[in-house]
């Protein structure tokens, strides 16, 4: 159950980046199988899609995974063209294990190279592709991002999930722990005086924590576990600023479809293709 709840992020709209990739491939004169990639998730027993064409970046993803979303945000922020192959995380295709032994999303394929683990993917993209740099160069600044990332992974994100999955006393305890973790992020914005963790524009950390904030209304369901602006004024300003970002809008989740996905997961049969049409 925890795994299915973990993978609940959705987008039904094709990304504008996918739309711009297709004409470029057609112009090359070929119609490789990758232009025919479905949005529906590949499952156990499926035939592997053809590898991506030379020079084409492929993201193996899941519409409902916050970790994959971290990488979608970075791809959008840096204006990188890519194609997407969705996989079902409950019934993983066997061919996926041959590419990534952990069979987790996101996984990147690029000219025979494979990169997996969301933060590893994001750092790789930042360093290899041109465009705005998302990771600071200065060692202490870079370390500060790393430390906040560690706090997020150890103290904050797990409590987001715990609040969502527990009730009563246990839920309140998890909520207190979540707020303790968030205070460190609030304090960082107070000290830095910048709108984003990356400075005047969002950076590595902004994108890596964003997916859970975008889903906070679905994660923090009870009124007693709602985050209050009066307690986290800088974080709330950051939320507003992030919503205004074009890259955030481009890959944003459809929360209605997401909620439907969660319902299928709770019922024990997560539908990773929910909200897609027959031709998808």
């Amino acid at each position, binding site marked *: 159950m925890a795994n299915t709840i973990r993978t609940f992020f959705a987008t039904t709209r094709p990304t504008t980046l996918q739309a711009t990739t297709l004409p470029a491939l057609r112009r090359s004169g070929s119609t490789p199988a990758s232009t025919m990639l479905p949005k529906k998730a590949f499952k156990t027993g499926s035939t592997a899609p053809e590898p991506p064409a030379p020079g084409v970046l492929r993201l193996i993803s899941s519409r409902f995974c916050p970790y994959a979303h971290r990488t979608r945000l970075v791809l959008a922020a840096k204006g990188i063209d890519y194609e997407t192959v969705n996989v079902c995380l409950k019934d993983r295709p066997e061919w996926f294990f041959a590419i990534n*032994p952990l069979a987790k999303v996101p996984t990147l394929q690029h000219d025979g190279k494979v990169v997996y683990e969301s933060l590893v993917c994001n750092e*790789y993209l930042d360093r290899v592709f041109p465009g705005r740099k998302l990771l600071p160069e200065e060692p202490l600044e870079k370390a500060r991002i790393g430390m906040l990332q*560690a706090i997020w992974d150890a103290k904050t994100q797990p409590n987001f999930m715990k609040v969502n999955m527990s009730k009563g006393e246990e839920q309140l305890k998890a909520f207190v722990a979540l707020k303790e973790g968030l205070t460190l992020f609030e304090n960082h914005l107070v000290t830095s005086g910048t709108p984003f963790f990356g400075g005047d524009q969002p950076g590595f950390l902004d994108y890596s924590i964003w997916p859970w904030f975008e889903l906070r209304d679905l994660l923090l369901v009870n009124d007693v576990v709602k985050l209050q602006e009066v307690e986290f004024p800088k974080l709330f300003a950051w939320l507003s600023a992030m919503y205004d970002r074009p890259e955030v809008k481009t890959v944003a989740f459809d929360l209605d479809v997401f909620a439907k996905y969660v319902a299928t997961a709770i019922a024990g049969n997560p539908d990773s293709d929910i909200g897609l049409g027959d031709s998808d």
Partner: protein
Amino acid sequence: MFIISRFRVQARFSVFCRRYSQTFANMSSERALKRGSACPPPHGPGKLRLYSMRFCTYAQRTRLFLAAKGIEYETINIHLREKPEWFLEKTPIGKVPVLEKDGKIVYESLVCNEYLDGIYPDKCITPRDPLEKARQSMVLALWDTKVAGFYSKLVRGTKEDERPAVAKQFVDGLQYIENALTQPFFSGDKAGALDYNLWPWFERFSMLKNCAGVEVSADKFPKLTAWMGRMLELPEVKACFFSPEVHDQYGKTLLAGKSDYDLGLEE
């Protein structure tokens, strides 16, 4: 007959003591600071301090980097069951290793290690090539997912009936790491970041044998066995090394719920 055998026992015992004390000669001899202790005054300007624990695998990653890079530093050991209040103020996560320099704090072993390469750029250990850096991070992810949890379970004590299953998962997972080793070291011809970041767990393999009867054999893991031999030759590994006997002794105190952080230090 009785006098001769007593001499033999005494002779064996003094050899043991010499070997035992040699194992500790190259280590900081500072006792772990506890709750209620006074906060040590800051180290001088430009000087580096490491908050550590003598037997912590994660802190050893950073001690290996420090040794490999030839950086001078001071060590303050922390009592991890009764952490000093002043330590918890320095780092919200309350774990070691922690680096402190000119009032700046860095924690998390991998963050510390990259930070060291950033502020002491000579002898850079972190790979400069983005794909190589990604590859090393992915092997660590394989270690974390496929091996680390089972290793921990075996060392911290698993129920008798659960042990065979956990041991199998450990051995199956370790195969991924064996397969990832395609050169003399994980990082290539010389030891690098991935070698140092993985080493502390391999140094403690004797604990697996003594706590859970799990042996990492040379037949099943020829490449890892050869790599371990190469690592043990390196001066930076020797500088941070504890013998299997010492690790096993510490492991016993850990299993008993009373980790002896000052094991081997003179009163």
